[in-house]
C-alpha cells in the first residue's frame, strides 16, 4: 500500500509540474531579464572598465619608463597626470570583486589605503619584490604610487633628487607599476572566457552571478565607498578623526574627485546606462509598498552627491577644518546603505553573502 501511495503522489506531482509548463505564455520573463542584466553588466560595465583601466596602466608604464630614464620635473609631472587618470578609472573597477579578480585578490593588491610606508621603505632597502605576500598588499598599487610620487619627500625638488641619488627607489617605482599591469592583464584576458559562465549563471543561489554581483555592489557601496572614503577618515569608526586615512593622502587634492568618480560608477551601475540593471529589476518585481523604491534609492544617491560636492577638493583639509560637513555627507550616504540592505534585498530576495545553513 505504501508503494501505491508513493507512486500516486509522484504521478500527482508530475502532473502538476507538467501542466504548469504549457499553462502560461508569460514564461521565462524573469530568466530573460536577469540574463539581459548580466549581459549588460559584463559587456557595458565590467569588461570595458577593465580595458579602460588597462589602457591607462599602459600609459602609466610608459610615463614610468620615461621618468626612470630621466627623473626630472617634466617627467614627474606627466607621470603624475597619468597616475591620476589611472586612479580615476580604477574607481570603475573596484566593485567588480568577482571571478578572476576575486580569486587573485586583485582589489587588495590595487587599492588598500592608507599604504604602509614602513613596509615600502623596507621593501625598497631590501629590494624585495614579493608582491603576492599578503603583508605586501598595502605596499603596492595606487596608494603606494601615491606615496612614491608625492610623499617620499617634502618638495618636488627633493623627490626628484631622491630618485636621482637612490636607484632602489626608481626600481621599486617601476616594479610597482609593472606589478599593477601584471595583475590587470590576466583579469582582462580571463574575462573573455569567464564572460559566458558569468552571464549564464542566472539562477537564485548563493554563488550565482546575479546574487554575487548584487552583494558585491552593496559591499562596495558600504565598505569601499562609504567606509573607506568617508567613514574611516572622518572618525566614524574610531571616535576621533583620522584624516591621514583619506584616499590619495599624499597627493592631497584628488580625494574628492576620486570619491565623486566612484559615486558615478555606483550610480551608473545601478541605473544600467540604457540597459537592464538593478533599478529596472527592482521596479519590475516590487510590490505595492515598494513601488517607489527604485527612484527612492536614486533620490538618496543624489542628496548624498550634493553634499559631497560641497566638500573641499582635499578631504584631508576638510576633515581638519570642518569634519561635521564630512559626517553629514557620510550620514546621507548611510541612508542609501539602509535602503540597499533592507528594502532592496527584501524585494530582490537575494540572500546576503555566504550564509550557509538550513532555514525553517
Amino acid at each position, binding site marked *: 500500500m505504501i508503494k501505491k501511495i508513493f507512486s500516486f503522489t509522484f504521478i500527482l506531482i508530475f502532473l502538476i509540474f507538467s501542466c504548469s509548463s504549457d499553462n502560461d505564455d508569460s514564461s521565462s520573463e524573469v530568466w530573460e531579464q536577469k540574463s539581459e542584466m548580466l549581459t549588460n553588466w559584463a559587456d557595458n560595465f565590467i569588461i570595458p572598465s577593465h580595458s579602460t583601466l588597462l589602457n591607462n596602466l599602459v600609459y602609466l608604464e610608459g610615463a614610468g619608463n620615461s621618468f626612470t630614464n630621466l627623473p626630472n620635473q617634466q617627467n614627474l609631472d606627466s607621470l603624475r597626470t597619468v597616475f591620476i587618470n589611472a586612479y580615476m578609472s580604477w574607481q570603475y573597477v573596484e566593485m567588480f570583486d568577482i571571478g578572476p579578480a576575486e580569486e587573485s585578490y586583485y582589489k587588495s593588491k590595487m587599492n588598500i589605503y592608507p599604504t604602509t610606508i614602513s613596509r615600502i621603505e623596507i621593501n625598497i632597502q631590501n629590494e624585495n619584490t614579493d608582491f603576492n605576500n599578503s603583508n605586501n598588499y598595502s605596499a603596492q598599487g595606487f596608494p603606494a604610487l601615491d606615496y612614491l610620487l608625492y610623499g617620499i619627500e617634502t618638495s618636488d625638488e627633493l623627490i626628484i633628487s631622491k630618485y636621482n641619488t637612490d636607484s632602489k627607489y626608481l626600481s621599486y617605482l617601476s616594479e610597482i607599476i609593472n606589478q599593477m599591469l601584471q595583475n590587470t592583464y590576466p583579469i582582462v584576458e580571463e574575462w573573455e572566457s569567464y564572460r559566458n559562465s558569468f552571464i549564464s549563471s542566472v539562477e537564485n543561489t548563493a554563488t550565482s552571478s546575479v546574487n554575487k554581483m548584487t552583494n558585491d555592489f552593496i559591499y562596495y557601496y558600504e565598505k569601499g565607498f562609504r567606509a573607506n572614503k568617508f567613514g574611516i577618515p572622518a572618525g566614524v569608526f574610531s571616535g576621533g578623526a583620522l584624516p591621514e586615512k583619506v584616499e590619495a593622502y599624499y597627493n592631497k587634492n584628488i580625494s574628492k574627485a576620486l570619491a565623486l568618480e566612484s559615486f558615478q560608477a555606483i550610480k551608473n551601475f545601478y541605473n544600467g546606462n540604457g540597459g537592464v540593471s538593478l533599478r529596472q529589476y527592482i521596479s519590475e518585481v516590487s510590490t505595492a509598498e515598494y513601488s517607489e*523604491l527604485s527612484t527612492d534609492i536614486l533620490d538618496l544617491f543624489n542628496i548624498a552627491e550634493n553634499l559631497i560636492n560641497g566638500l573641499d577638493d582635499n578631504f584631508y583639509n576638510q576633515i581638519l577644518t570642518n569634519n561635521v560637513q564630512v559626517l553629514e555627507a557620510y550620514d546621507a550616504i548611510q541612508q542609501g546603505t539602509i535602503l540597499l540592505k533592507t528594502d532592496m534585498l*527584501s524585494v530582490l530576495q537575494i540572500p546576503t553573502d555566504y550564509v550557509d545553513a538550513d532555514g525553517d
Partner: protein
Amino acid sequence: MNMNSKIISYINSNTNSSPLAVFRIGFGLMMLYSILRFWNKGWIYTLYIEPKFHFKYYGFNWIKDLGDYTYIIFVICIISSIFITIGYKYRLSMVLFFLSFTYIELIDKTTYLNHYYFISTLSFLMIFLPANAYFSIDNILRKKSYKEIPKWSIDCIKLLLSIVYFYSGLAKINSDWLFNAMPLKLWLPSKYDIPLIGETFMQQEWVHYFMSWGGMFYDISIPFLLLYKKTRIIGFILVIFFHLFTGVLFPIGMFPYIMIVGSLIFFDYSVHEKIIKWIKKIIEPIRRRIIIYNNIKEEKIIIKKKKIIMSIISVFFVIQLFLPFRYLLYPSELFWSEEGYRFSWRVMLVEKIGYTTFKIKSNKNESYFYVNNEEFLTSFQEKQMSFQPDFILEYAHFLGDYYTSKGYLDVEVYADSYVSLNGRSNKRFVNSEVDLYKEKESFKNKKWIIPIDDEIKGF
C-alpha cells in the same frame, strides 16, 4: 462509565507495539543522517566553533561551545542515534541523544529552527516511551519482547505531531499571510530558477494566495485527516506532497523527510508489521548469526514508575499547549518585536531583514564611534542579530563589556537599527536614544523597541 473510569481504562488499554518500534527506527536513522549531513557540510565549525561570540538563550549562558572538542558532542549524538535505531540500551541512548542534541542547540540561538526545537521536544518525550518493547537489541539481551504496549505511548507522539501541525496552521491565520499573501508573495517569485513551475506558477499572484490559504488549511486539517481511518491515505498523500514540495522550494534541509517518516505513526499496526517484515528481510544475513533471538519470550509489559512518567508527560503537554500563546502577555506586535515568537511552531511566517549598527559613547562626552560588526560576528550571526531584539540587546552588552575591558570609561551603547517586515518599507526598529548597555534582558516587554505602527490581525 464516568469520566474517571474512562480515563483509567484508557490508561490501561494496550495496543500493538510495532508502530512505536518503526517510529524508533525511523527516528534513529533520520537523526543519524541529519547529523552526518550537518557535519559533512562543515557547519559544526562554521556555526559553533568559528564564531567568537555566541548568542545565548535567556538563562543558558552557562552552555559553552567546547572549541575543537565540540565534535565530541556530535559524536555522542551519532552513537546514541545508532543505538536508538537498533534499540540497544534504549532509554540511556535516548537520554544521551536528548542531552547532546539539546546542548548543541543551546550553544547559539542564531541557529534556532522550529525543526530543531521539534527534535528536542520529541526526543525528550521519547525518553519516557517504551520504544524498545519490540524488534530491538534490548529484546535479545533481556530475552523478553512485548507485543503490546500502552495505547497512550503511541498516542503521545500522535498528539505532539498534531500540535505541531495544528499550531503552525493557527499561526497562519493572520492578515499578512491570508490577505496579503506575505511573505510568499516575496518568496515564490524568487524561485524563478525551479524547472517548469519557476517562471510560470511561481510568478502568478493567485498562486501566492492559493498557497497561503492552502498551507493554512493543510496545517490545520492534517492531524484530523491522519487520525481518521477513512481519510488517512488522502492525508498521507498530502503530507508527502506538501513536504516534498516545500522541500524543493525552501532550504529546509531534512525536515520534510522527518515529518513524512514521522507521520507513518498514524497508520494501523498492520502497515508497521509489514515494514518490520521488510526490514527483517534486509537484515536476514545478520539475524541468522544471532541464534539466541529464538529464545526471546513474549511477555506482558509492565511500565515501571508509571505514575512519575504519566505526570511528566502530562506537564510536558500542558506546556506544549500553552507556551505558544505566551505572546498574548506582551502588548507589542508579535511579528515585529518577536516577544514570545520562538517555540511556538510559527514557521515561514515572516520575511524580515534588518540593518543594525552600534554606536559606542564613552567618558560622558559627545564623541562616539560605530562598531564594525564583522569584527565580532559571522555574517549569519549579523543577519540574525539585525532584526531580533534579544540578539540586539545581548550583542550591545557584549560590546559594552568589550570596550569597558579595553579601558573605555562609562561606556554607552546605542543601536541604529532598521527593519523591513513582510514587504513593508524599512522602519526604525530600536529607540536610538536608549543606552542598551543599561537595559537588562528579561521576559518583560522591551520598551525600547519602536512599535511598528501597523497591525497584523490574527493569531
